[in-house]
């Protein structure tokens, strides 16, 4: 799309685009191409020689039980985070929407965790669940559960899921509340006159009408859990214990940056790239549809 009235100038538009394009090419496109190329190479331990091996890195990757475990972890983690944060946010949004008095004040009190960095959110919960000094670990001990995320993989996963969901509730809440407020009151009133109670109205009218918002948030939350949660993992469990919270993004970092396995790390990058592209396509196709509504 372009304006009907345009300016004519031979070099000015290029000059205006130059900074954006330069940064994009140098720091985005070029490294991405490098990753694509390196994913087809194998380098020896001293970095002295490299060999072109086609898709060997990928074959190795997908036959590596550790990588497949990281894949499973990522899927479990993402869907737990998406489900938990969306369910809680929807509940809170529906309740806040009912209370005409106070909805604005409630909104202010609920949205600020969006501003907390994932890594900081991780540290907050890490402290509260700390087996020695944490208040929640203390409470859990009181009811007979011996919490220890240093030893128990399930506990560690629960910890990062809680931290990641806590931060994301505010975002989902905002979008659900906006979605709820956009539903025409007349529909709900008509159903009420026909004798449908609040729960029936929610499941048969409100929830189906919210489905575009729900689907949109599902994609956004999965993207968030896949890519923006590196800080939570790195600042708390560091992928442990025994790889129980090792997610894909964390593995790219630890294999490439700490383990210095260039070929494998690049192949993992390419797999992640494919996932981002797929998710972006889903998101954009969907948004295209929403505009038609």
């Amino acid at each position, binding site marked *: 799309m372009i304006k009907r009235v345009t300016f004519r100038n031979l070099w000015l*538009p*290029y000059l205006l685009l130059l900074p954006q394009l330069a940064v994009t090419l140098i720091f985005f496109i070029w490294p991405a191409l490098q990753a694509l190329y390196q994913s087809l190479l194998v380098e020896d331990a001293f970095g002295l020689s490299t060999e072109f091996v086609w898709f060997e890195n990928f074959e190795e990757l997908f036959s590596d039980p550790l990588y497949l475990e990281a894949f499973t972890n990522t899927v479990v983690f993402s869907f737990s985070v998406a489900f938990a944060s969306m369910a809680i946010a929807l509940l809170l949004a529906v309740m806040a929407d009912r209370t005409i008095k106070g909805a604005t004040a409630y909104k202010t009190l609920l949205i600020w965790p969006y501003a907390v960095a994932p890594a900081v959110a991780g540290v907050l919960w890490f402290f509260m669940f700390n087996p020695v000094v944490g208040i929640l670990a203390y409470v859990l001990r009181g009811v007979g559960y011996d919490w220890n995320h240093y030893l128990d993989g399930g506990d560690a996963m629960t910890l990062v899921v809680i931290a990641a969901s806590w931060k994301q509730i505010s975002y989902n809440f905002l979008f659900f509340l906006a979605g709820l407020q956009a539903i025409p009151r007349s529909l709900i009133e008509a159903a009420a006159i026909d004798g449908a109670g609040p729960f029936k109205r929610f499941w048969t009218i409100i929830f189906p009408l919210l489905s575009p918002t729900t689907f949109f948030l599902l994609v956004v939350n999965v993207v968030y859990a896949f890519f923006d949660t590196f800080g939570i993992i790195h600042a708390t469990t560091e992928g442990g214990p025994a790889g129980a919270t090792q997610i894909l993004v964390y593995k*790219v970092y630890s294999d490439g940056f700490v383990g210095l396995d260039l070929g494998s790390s690049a192949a993992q990058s390419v797999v992640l790239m494919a996932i981002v592209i797929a998710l972006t396509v889903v998101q954009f196709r969907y948004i295209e549809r929403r505009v038609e509504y």
Partner: protein
Amino acid sequence: MVENRPYLTVISHLVVILGIVITVMPIWITFVASTHPIEHIMDGTIPMWPGDQFFENYATVLGAGIADAGGIPVGTMLFNSLVMALTIAVGKIAISLIAAFAIVYFDFPFRMACFWIIFITLMLPVEVRILPTFAVVANLGMLNSYIGLSLPLIASATATFLFRQFFLTVPEELAEAARIDGAGPLKFFKDILLPLSRTNVAALFVILFIYGWNQYLWPLLVTTDESFYTVVMGIQRMTQAAESLPLWHLVMATTMLAMLPPVIVVVVMQKLFVKGLVETEK
């Protein structure tokens, strides 16, 4: 309210208040822990009410840092975070404004190609190209510098789209009138388009400031020199140290300080924040 069901209204309020309590609880615990001497935290009786060490603890982290964790003063880290967040926010807005202006108001060869190149950045978050990007920044000698911290993150497809979308809604007559009056493109941009974009710029600034402040992976990669640590990533080093040393009160004070600036921005500029959030997701 469709019908009057008092008991349901009471339940609604209770549920929301419970939600708020759960949301706020981690911050309260953190704040309380940051105001106690370490002995109160380590002896197993977890305090629920602020102690009397508020000034001592915060003065320690701000001024001296945690020497045992090889730390530098948190004041320096906060300054680094501020520089990084402001550079990223201002930089992204500036280069996206002019890029969107070129794409919407000029007709030139390869216009759509430029547009698609910018679009592709959406699909390439730092996380998927960690090593090669690090290599580029290292080769350019940008490690341990403010420019290395912020420049590689400055390209923005989202901001460019947002401004493009907004420019398309600006009435054609304005550009026509400007041309008839003999204004060139730059004068039109400066005197008409920029003032019109003010609200969008402000809304985007709020979002991007938070984005920049909360960066974690990138500062972790490009800073090895402690004097360039940002506060969000600096906390991680302290947490690791707190595993063996009794430092939790200081770590929690730092956590409060790392959270405060972006949270204040969100609360004070709530309207702009919500607008920015909704617009960038369109």
